[in-house]
Structure formats: C-alpha cells, structure tokens
C-alpha cells in the first residue's frame, strides 16, 4: 500500500524538506537584498564619517604643521650669519665684488640650513623682495634677482600663501629678517604642493587627496584617470560626487590662500569590501540555516512519517493475512494518528460485528436447514444437533481450543447437509438398501461440500462435511483416505455420527444400548474408528452420551449396569459386530 503511494506522490519527508528549503531560501534572498541595500547606505555613512573625522584630524594637524612651518622659518631666520650678511649687504652696495662675496655667503649659509633642517626650499630677499640667494632642490624657481611676490606684512608678521613659480605650486611662508627692531630682509620657506606631498597627506588622512588652486588640480594622490575626471568637475565643500563611474565622498580639509585641499573617499571601493564581507557572513549564515532546516525537516518528517508508515504497514499486513480480528496497534506518533487508529479499530469492530451477525444469520439458516433435513426422517430427528454436541464433548476431552471446538460444532451440525440432495425414497427406505441406493447415499459428503463451498466463512468446516465418512483403513468414502490423512475434526465427527446412529432406533431395528455401541466402537478401532477419538469418547461422562445425570464415565456406568467389567476390545468385537455392520449400511 505504502509502496504504491510512494510511486505516485513524493514522500512526506521530501515535501517537508522542499517546503523548509523554499522558505529559508526566500528568507535568505530577502535578507540578502535588504543587506545589500543597507550596506551601500551604511558604507556611504561610514565614508562620510571617516572623511569628517579625517577633516577634524587633518585640521588640527594642518594648523600644527603650518605653525611649525612658520616657527621653523622664523627660527631659521634668526641665523646670525644670514642677518649679518644681509645687513652688511646694504653698507657695501656699490662694491660689486663685495656684494658677490656676501651673496655667496648667504647662499652657503642657506644651503647649510636647508640640508641640516631638511626643508624643501629656502630663499632670502632684500627689503624690496629681490631674491639674494636660494637653496634647495627647487632653488631654480627663485634665482637671485627674481622678484618675490609674497611679502611679509607691514608690521613684519609672517605670511603664508600658495605661490606659483614656473608652473609649480608651493606653500610658502615669508618671515622677516629682523635686526634689532628693523626688518633687514625677508626669509622664505617653500614646500612644493606636488603629487608626493599629496600622497603623504593621503597616507595621513586615509583617503585620496587632491590639491586645487583656483579650481584647477595641481596635485593629487589619485590615478591619472581620476585626476582627469577631477579636472572636469567642480568639487563641493563637502558631499558626494561621481568620478569615473565611482561614487566619492568629498570633504574639503583646508585651504591656504586660493589653494584648497580635498579628501576623496571612494564609496564604491568601500562598499565592494563591505559587500564581500557581509556576503561571506550571509553565505555562512545561509548555509547554517539550511543545515538546521534540513535537520529539522528530517526530524519532523521522521516523527510524522514513521508512525504513518508503521500504521500503513500494520494495515498492509492485516490485509495480506486477511486477519482483521486483532485491533491495530497504536502508532504512538501523534494524537491525530491515534485517533485514526482508534477510528479504524471501531470500524473494524463494527464490520466484524456485522460479519458475525450475517454469519449468525447464515448459520441460523443452515442450522434450520440441517434441522429440517433431520426432520425429513423421524428416525434421524435431532441427529445433527446430537452429533454436534457429542463432537464438541470429544473435542473438549482431547483439549481442543475453544475456536476449534466452535469449528467442530458447526461442522458437525452441517455434516449431513449433503443429504438434501438424496431422495426421500432412499433416505427413508425402511429396508436394506440396494447397492445403487447405497451409492446415492455415499454422494452426500461431496454434495454437502459443494453446497457449502461458496460460503467462505465455512471453509474450515468444509473438510468435516466432506470427509466425515472416511475410515482409518481407507475403506471409507468419498476419497478413501487413510489414518492420518483424515483431519482430526472429520475423525471426531465420524465417531460421533456412528455412535448416534447406533444408539438411535431405526425403522428396521431398535436402538442399540450405549454400552453395546461403545463396544462396537472399541471393536472397530483402527478399522472404522480412530483410537484417540474412541478413547476420548469412552472417557466422557454418561450424561453427555445419553439422557441422564450421572457424572460417571461411560465405561464405569457400563460396568455397573451390566455388571460386566469394562468391556475389553475382544468381547465387544465378538458380541456386537453384526449389528453395527448392519447399521452402518444406512
């Protein structure tokens, strides 16, 4: 039954698994979509926060750096040789040789300072801003005689500005060379605002750095592509901007003069990393959830499916054995299944009850038929009932089960049902039968079996009806079976039938006394009767074999009544043989 179901529709386990899988897959997909959507927003926020933090950090750093830059310049400007040389330069004007000397003194001093302090570029001008000497890798941008555009304040306060020289941008600081109270010249410290500087800042700010002068890119830490993209857009003070397809968060870090320093954080880049991270987490979580789902589904399917399987197996076995007598065992799986089992058992009981009722009805009819049959001949009236009773007594004596006794009783009751097909003329003939007539009589077991065959519930009784005239010596009919070939029930009914016949009166003879009949039985053991059955019958109380109330066994009664000892087999054979043979001919 279950095999057929499996072939037709998927197993419960598969269904549960599929369902759980589908649900989890949906949840994971939904979470993934939500996550991806959120990741971008979160990453943008993070980058913005990072930029703002960078800006704060950078603002402090920048102020410090500039202050240090200025202090450095001012400290360097306190160099006595420089001051002396510049101041002496005035008093020596007009003497070119002397001025050349002084200029080279200044240059030597500047170069020394530049190397010791490792500053990018140093210059000294006179009070008019004309360069006297320069030092450093970029000194070519400030040759002697060039006019410096950046000048200290009127009160000698230092000044910072972005200065363009020969297309190079510098963050320059100008401080005065002060002698006593007087400004005798100016001192310049300049750092190039180039890509290397931007790269340094980028490492500090942990973002890309772009330096713009009047909106034009002069240095970046970015790739050349991004630099070109930067050139073509106007950067906001802060916000987001799309450059070369990638989204960037822009934050202006500081501005010197007309130069601005921007930090650029790539949202796309950060999102890529974050997505990869969260993707991994999602995949792991998904795999874990799926595993749990599979396990859970398996368990669920097992707890649901196994009792169902058990139930259907029980039913299948029951159907196969056609045994509906035992109630279905409770599967114990769930209340629903238990209810189903109980309902089935109730149904089974109801059906069994109905079956029993219809059996009883059948039996009633059959019993009535048997009774009617017996009644056809006044001499045989009650014969079937008596044989049935005696057979049950014998069966009980040899300790048959109650079920077997019931089978025996019913079989015995119906044993002569085949006589319905024997004509009254033969059946009620008061004289000895002709061989032809006897052949007709001999047909009744076969006939009875044929009548009862369609009634399936009488299958067990069929052998009794058909074989109750077989004899141990093989001289019986209809098949001539021998000894153990004859079923025990049939042997019992055979003995009971013979006994009742012998002890009943007939039109042509009187009833044989019980003792005589017993003797006949004993005499014909192994020939006509089964020894075990005869012995069992002999042990029966008399009350069971004839009307009376004595509890004594048949044999004892015989001995007291006739005052002969329990008849030995020899005496019975000798005394009763002829009569019994005569009776059997009926």
């Amino acid at each position, binding site marked *: 039954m279950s095999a057929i179901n499996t072939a037709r529709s998927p197993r419960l386990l598969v269904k549960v698994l599929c369902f759980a899988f589908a649900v989890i897959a949906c949840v994971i997909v939904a979470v993934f979509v939500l996550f991806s959507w959120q990741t971008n927003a979160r990453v943008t926020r993070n980058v913005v926060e990072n930029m703002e933090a960078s800006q704060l950090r950078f603002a402090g750093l920048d102020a410090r750096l500039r202050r240090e830059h200025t*202090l450095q310049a*001012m*400290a360097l*400007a*306190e*160099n*006595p*040789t*420089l*001051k*002396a*040389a510049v*101041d*002496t330069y*005035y*008093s*020596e*004007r007009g*003497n070119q040789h*002397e001025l050349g000397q*002084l200029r080279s*003194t200044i240059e030597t001093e500047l170069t020394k300072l530049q190397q010791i302090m490792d500053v990018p570029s140093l210059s000294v001008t*006179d*009070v*008019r801003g004309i360069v006297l000497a320069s030092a450093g890798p970029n000194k070519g941008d400030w040759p002697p005689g060039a006019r410096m555009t950046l000048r200290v*304040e*009127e*009160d*000698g*306060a*230092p000044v910072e500005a972005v200065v363009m020289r020969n297309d190079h941008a510098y963050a320059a600081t100008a401080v*005065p060379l*002060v*002698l*006593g*109270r*007087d*400004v*005798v010249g100016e001192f310049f410290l300049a750092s190039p605002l180039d890509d290397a500087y931007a790269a340094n800042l980028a490492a500090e700010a942990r973002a890309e750095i772009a330096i713009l002068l009047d909106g034009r890119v002069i240095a970046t830490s970015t790739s050349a592509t991004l630099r070109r993209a930067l050139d073509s857009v106007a950067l906001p003070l802060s916000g987001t901007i799309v450059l070369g397809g990638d989204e960037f968060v822009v934050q202006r870090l500081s501005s010197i003069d007309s130069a601005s320093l921007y930090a650029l954080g790539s949202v796309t880049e950060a999102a890529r990393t974050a997505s990869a991270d969260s993707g991994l987490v999602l995949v792991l979580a998904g795999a874990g959830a799926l595993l749990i789902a599979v396990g859970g589904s398996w368990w669920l399917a097992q707890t649901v499916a196994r009792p169902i399987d058990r139930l259907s197996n029980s039913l299948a076995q029951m159907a196969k054995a056609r045994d509906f007598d035992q109630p279905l065992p409770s599967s114990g799986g769930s209340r629903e299944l238990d209810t189903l089992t109980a309902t089935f058992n109730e149904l089974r009981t109801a059906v069994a009850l109905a079956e029993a009722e219809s059996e009883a009805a059948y039996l009633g009819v059959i019993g009535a038929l048997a009774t009617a049959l017996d009644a056809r001949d006044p001499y045989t009236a009650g014969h079937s009932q008596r044989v049935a009773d005696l057979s049950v007594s014998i069966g009980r004596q040899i300790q048959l089960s109650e079920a077997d006794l019931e089978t025996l009783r019913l079989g015995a009751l119906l044993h002569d049902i085949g006589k319905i097909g024997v004509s009254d003329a033969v059946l009620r003939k008061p004289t000895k039968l002709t061989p032809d007539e006897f052949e007709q009589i001999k047909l009744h077991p076969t006939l009875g079996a044929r009548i009862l065959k369609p009634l399936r519930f009488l299958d067990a009784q069929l052998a009794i009806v058909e074989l109750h005239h077989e004899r141990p010596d093989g001289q019986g009919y209809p098949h001539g079976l021998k000894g153990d070939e004859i079923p025990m029930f049939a042997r019992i009914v055979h003995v009971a039938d013979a006994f009742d016949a012998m002890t009943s009166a007939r039109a042509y003879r009187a009833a044989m006394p019980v003792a005589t009949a017993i003797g006949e039985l004993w005499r014909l053991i192994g020939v006509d009767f089964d020894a075990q059955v005869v012995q069992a019958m002999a042990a029966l109380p008399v009350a069971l074999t004839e009307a009376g109330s004595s509890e004594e066994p048949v044999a004892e009664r015989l001995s007291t009544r006739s005052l002969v000892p329990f008849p030995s087999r020899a005496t019975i054979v000798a005394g009763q043989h002829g009569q019994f043979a005569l009776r059997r001919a009926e």
Partner: protein
Amino acid sequence: MDSLRVCAGVALSVTVLCSSERSDLSAREDATGSLSGRVHVVAHPARRLATAGVYPGRVVGIQADRDSSELDNVIVFINSSMRVDSAPQRLSIRQTNEEFVPHVVAVTTGSTVEFPNDDLIFHNVFSLSRAATFDLGRYPRNSSKARTFTKPGVVKVFCHLHSHMSAIVRVFSHPYFAFPDRNGRFTIPDVPAGRVEVTAWHERAGEVTHMATIDDGGTAELRFSLPLTDPE
C-alpha cells in the same frame, strides 16, 4: 635706494640750511674754521619696526624711547678721502643686556675699539664688512677683545650668538666728524677752510650730502632735517 623700505620706518626729516656762503675754496693749509648745525629727527608715525617675531622678548627689551635717541646713530662728517693724521683713539662698545652700546661709533684710522662683555652670557663679535672683516670669537663676562681699524669705511659688527645684536664702527681717514647731541646740535671744530661736502648719515635712512664753505676762523652753520626723499 635699497634701504628705502627701512627709511619709511626710520623717518628723519632733513632740511639743509647753508648760512655760510662765503668761502675760499683754495684756502691756506693752516686756515681752519668750524662747522656747526642741527640735525632734526622726526619720528615717523608709519615707521616700520619689526613687532612680530619668534623671540619677542628680545625685541621688547629695546627702549621704547629709542626714537628720540636715533640722533645717537647719526654721524655728520666731512665727506672727503683726505688723510689727516690724528692721535689714535681707544673706544669701547660694551655688550650690555644683549646689545652693543653704543650702537654707532666713529673713529679715525688706526684707532682701536674694545668690546667688553658685561653680560652673564657669552658674546661674540664679528664683521663681514670690507673695511674690516674679522671674528673675535666667543668670550665670557668681564672679558674684552679689541680690534684696530686701519681702513676707512663702514664696519658692521654682529654677534654670532645673538642675531639681533648689531653695531656700527664708522672709520674715517680724518677727524672731521661729530655726533649730534640730544638737541640735534653738532660742532665739528678745526675744519680746514674751504668748500667741503658735509654728509649726515644714518645706517638706514642713508646719507644726505650738502656743500658748505668753511672760512678761516669762521663757523659754517648747517641745518639737517631727516629723512631724505628717495632719489631713485
């Protein structure tokens, strides 16, 4: 003029008043007269002073009334390369409170200037000027080193240890020079008679030169008012 920017700060108004026009340019050699006059110094409101600096304490240390004493840094002299021997002088520029005092001295050639150190700290004296290039090295308190100046010219003196310190030794080949007093008055006695160039000089205001005729026994009166306008 190179020092114009500084001039803008050190404003000296100069008016020249030649009261003595009569003179004999080919005077006798022993004929002398005297030269006197007045230098008027005007403190310019827009004078450029370095007020901001890394070491403001050293700048603040300078007297607030220095303006009026700028007269101390003015030299009036006969602008001539004539050699007139005179007894060598011995002067001092003291190093006091991280300042050379006086800031400006004038000597004749052959004179010696001593630089005693009055401070608790070391000082140094050096010069890069053509007239006298020297470095006296570092020396402590109560020590003194001297330098004899043999060439006429402007000698700017500095301290290697204290870059704000400076002094000027003006060396002349003749003794005809004078410093104005607190009122700006000056007198140069025993000037050889004749027509002479008289110059009033200040280290940053530059110099102003005018002609004067010295009569024998007479006194030529000049009046200077600084600063000059830029001739360039």
